[in-house]
């Protein structure tokens, strides 16, 4: 050992601190994507643990495992975590990792704003969860219906963490959506017209528009609740003449587009994975794109289907029932086009395809059929707030999670340079698949048996016991599948098979770059002539070069060392500004009186400090040199 000398004459290896600092100051979309991915996976474990606690409590009737308030906090935080931190987090992960590469761009339009979005997301997520330290996490449901959210009925800090944490997360989502909107419109490679753009990027565009338009009404509602709680206004106080249903309208006109914000990127991933593993182009590309746009558009006209039982009257209920049924049409179009893509292909049954076809499409059909049952308004009068609803939306969201796993197995080699193990991947898939259907299949039955949701306990003798036990067993299978995935990921990082630039025989531009992707993405920006540009370069635009087995594996960066690409410099100002925002909103929570754990008027000190730090961050950012 002693004979091994120290390397001399090369640049000094950066220390651990410098390495960490490089992640704090990074403005590289790939590194930001990895930060999002790590944060989101951590919260997946948190939200999953919350799910397991729920299922332990409900495995048996009259369980004393959790007290009612703890249970209410856990089911609330499970929903908030999974929706705002996990699904939205993975969306941001994939937008960052994939979209610039698919477009043939070097980065997003505003790299520092992108870093800012991530740091606001991280700090907002922590703020939302901070209430656990007081034993007062939000406990009003992810929907936080007024007037339960008034200080009279929830005097604890939980609702304040809800109101403040979600405002912070909204800032992150909107900043990120603006960034991707501008990126997709302006930074596409030369020749990539909108209808040559990959479907995942298309869905990112639709989702960005939805985020920009859906979050403001929600933010308005949150600000109103904040004013009611902190400053004694009466937006939702029935005693002062308000109708608390106002909140439900504001919430669901955000909340239903939010459902499509969650699902459209997953549909985009499926639309990327299926053609590659069927070795055929996506069937009916314009129909898949337009049905995605149409779903986003219809998403605006269906919010009151969450409110069929609030007494809007038969005319409103009829209208919203029919618009909701219409959503089934473009959704069906997508499913049939995926089936037609598989039809007649050379299907390669690899883990990404399993997750996309059997993990997404198969259970999503159940989510769709049960969705139409909810659109049948009178049936919804019975089904609403039973486990039938819980089963329905988990049959939408678990397919979304499956699509994320499809995306992870598919794109992982691009960013790590190594493949994930196929054997562990298939084990992961089948555990996930069986676990999901056991958990939520049992909940379909519980729905018919009339078990209401958001109940911390239930009596014996109503026929619910066996189904609850099955559902809980399924939840542990899902947890096990996630553990298998983590083992797979660690194994791949240590000793995974090297992937090469194009391990799946891909079709889109990201597979043109080396794996892992160099910081500048493309040494030379590609010129696009075809929808499946890389495929056309390999096989000819109509596959005519296949017979000659002419498969050049294009390395776009011969002589990588000589590439000199101008890239924006790292900056810590976005992280500073983000920290200030979260601190200021935390000060807002602390404005609550000392009896409930706040600081009272002293909270203004924190608000002011947060504002100052934000301003300092923005000032430094604004006056940084452009390069």
């Amino acid at each position, binding site marked *: 050992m002693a004979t091994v000398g120290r390397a001399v004459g090369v640049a000094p290896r950066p220390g651990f601190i410098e390495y960490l600092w490089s992640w704090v100051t990074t403005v590289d979309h790939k590194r930001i994507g990895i930060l999002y991915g790590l944060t989101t996976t951590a919260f997946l474990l948190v939200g999953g643990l919350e799910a397991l606690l729920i299922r332990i409590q409900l495995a048996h009737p009259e369980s004393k495992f959790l007290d009612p308030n703890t249970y209410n906090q856990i089911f609330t935080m499970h929903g908030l975590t999974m929706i705002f931190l996990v699904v939205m987090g993975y969306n941001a992960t994939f937008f960052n990792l994939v979209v610039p590469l698919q477009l043939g761009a070097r980065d997003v339009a505003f790299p520092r704003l992108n870093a800012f979005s991530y740091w606001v997301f991280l700090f907002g997520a922590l703020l939302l969860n901070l209430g656990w330290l007081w034993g007062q996490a939000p406990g009003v449901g992810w929907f936080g219906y007024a007037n339960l959210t008034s200080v009279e009925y929830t005097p604890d800090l939980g609702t304040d963490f809800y109101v403040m944490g979600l405002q912070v997360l909204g800032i992150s989502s909107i900043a990120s959506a603006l960034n991707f909107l501008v990126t997709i419109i302006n930074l596409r490679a030369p020749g990539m017209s909108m209808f040559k753009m990959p479907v995942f990027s298309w869905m990112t565009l639709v989702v960005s528009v939805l985020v920009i338009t859906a979050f403001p009404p929600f933010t308005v509602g949150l600000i109103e609740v904040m004013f009611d709680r902190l400053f004694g206004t009466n937006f939702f106080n029935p005693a002062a003449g308000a109708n608390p249903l106002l909140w439900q309208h504001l919430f669901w006109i955000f909340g239903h587009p939010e459902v499509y914000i969650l699902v459209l990127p997953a549909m985009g991933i499926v639309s990327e994975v299926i053609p590659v593993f069927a070795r055929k182009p996506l069937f009916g590309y314009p129909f898949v794109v337009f049905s995605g746009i149409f779903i986003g558009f219809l998403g605006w006209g269906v919010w009151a289907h969450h409110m069929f039982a609030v007494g809007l009257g038969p005319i409103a209920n*009829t209208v919203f029932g029919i618009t909701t049924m219409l959503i089934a049409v473009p959704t069906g179009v997508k499913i049939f086009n995926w089936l037609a893509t598989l039809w007649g292909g050379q299907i390669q049954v690899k883990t990404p395809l399993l997750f996309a076809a059997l993990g997404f499409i198969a259970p999503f059909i159940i989510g769709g059929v049960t969705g139409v049952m909810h659109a049948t308004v009178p*049936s919804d009068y019975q089904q609403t707030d039973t486990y039938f609803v819980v089963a329905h939306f988990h049959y939408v969201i678990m397919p979304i999670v499956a699509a994320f796993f499809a995306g992870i197995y598919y794109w992982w080699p691009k960013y790590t340079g190594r493949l994930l193990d196929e054997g562990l991947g298939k084990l992961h898939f089948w555990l996930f698949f069986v676990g999901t259907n056991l958990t939520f299949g049992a909940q379909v039955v519980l729905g018919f048996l009339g078990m209401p949701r958001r109940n911390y306990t239930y009596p014996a003798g109503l026929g619910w016991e066996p189904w609850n036990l099955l559902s809980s067993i399924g939840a542990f299978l899902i947890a096990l599948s996630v553990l298998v995935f983590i083992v797979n990921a660690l194994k791949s990082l240590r000793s995974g098979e090297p992937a090469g630039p194009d391990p799946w025989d891909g079709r889109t531009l990201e597979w043109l770059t080396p794996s892992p992707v160099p910081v500048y993405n493309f040494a030379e920006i590609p010129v696009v002539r075809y929808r499946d540009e890389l495929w056309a370069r390999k096989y000819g635009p109509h596959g005519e070069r296949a017979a000659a087995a002419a498969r050049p594996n294009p390395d776009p960066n011969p002589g990588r060392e000589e590439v000199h690409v101008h890239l924006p410099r790292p900056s810590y100002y976005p992280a500073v500004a983000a920290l200030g925002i979260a601190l200021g909103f935390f000060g807002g929570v602390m404005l609550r009186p000392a009896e409930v754990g706040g600081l009272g008027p002293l909270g203004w000190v924190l608000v002011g400090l947060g504002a100052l730090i934000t301003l300092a961050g923005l000032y430094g950012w604004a006056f940084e040199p452009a390069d």
Partner: protein
Amino acid sequence: MAAAAVGAAGCSPADPLNWLIASGDAAEQVRQLTVLVMVLGALVFVAVEGLLIYALLRFRRPAPADQLPPQVHGHTRLEVAWTMVPVLILVVIAVPTVRTVFALATPPDANPLRVEVIGHQWWWEFRYPDIVPGKTITTANELRIPVGRTVLASVTSADVIHSFWVPRLTGTIDVIPGKQVNRVWFNAWEPGEYYGWCKEFCGTQHAQMRFRVVAMPPAEFDRWVQARLTPPAVPASGQARQGYELFGQLGCSACHTIDGTPYQGKVGPNLTNIGERSTVGAGLLPNDPDGQNLARWIKDPQALKPGVKMPTLGLSDAQVGAIVAYLKSLK
């Protein structure tokens, strides 16, 4: 699997919240519509899953380097077909849906039995306004109705949003504080006890805000109404008399009303007919004839229903026994 399981469970009398079993006209209309949609949904499910699994098995094959599958980009007529077929299926669902929405919006009887439902954290108040001119009956957690008669419930809340649901009789209607009064109608075909449950998350004890609807033969219902119009007698002696006095001395009367006594608290449930109700604690425990559950409840409500507004007063067994004897006499 799921449908078969529900079918099997449907035969069991042990699932009083199974809404696929109707015990009244309103629930029956919903049930018929739901069965139609379930059948169509099952057909769509089998067809599409079948296509998916067939495609995955049939076209699972090696990918020779020199041979690609036909690079098909689309087919317009197919697109039209799989757009229009779902539209037609939806029309088949939408027409009866709209018809049922409107049918459920108006009570089928011009002179229904009117009741008022008031949700409280975490119990139910039921009132029969002007059931005989000028007289109103107030009760709690148990709504008695005559078999066959249409009941029109006007629902409001005293605090936060709740939701009124008696699955065997009617779907959900939200219970909203403030000016909005929602209405829902239902009837019961047969005498019996039907389970009701708060469905909208309303705070700590949302899970245990239950009630019963008791359908009685009309003559029996009329006798019950007449009995309710006369307050129960104040016990003159014995343990029940002791309980009557303790009810005032210990402060129970600050929250509870008992008709025909000075006890007129309005915060908690009216207890005038607690002796005949089938449950204790808003559907929590059976109101057994010996009063054991009632005694457990009065002794320590916070242990049975943590967070309930009724405090655990630390009463002695003798005090509890006396109060139970008094309350059990209230029929």
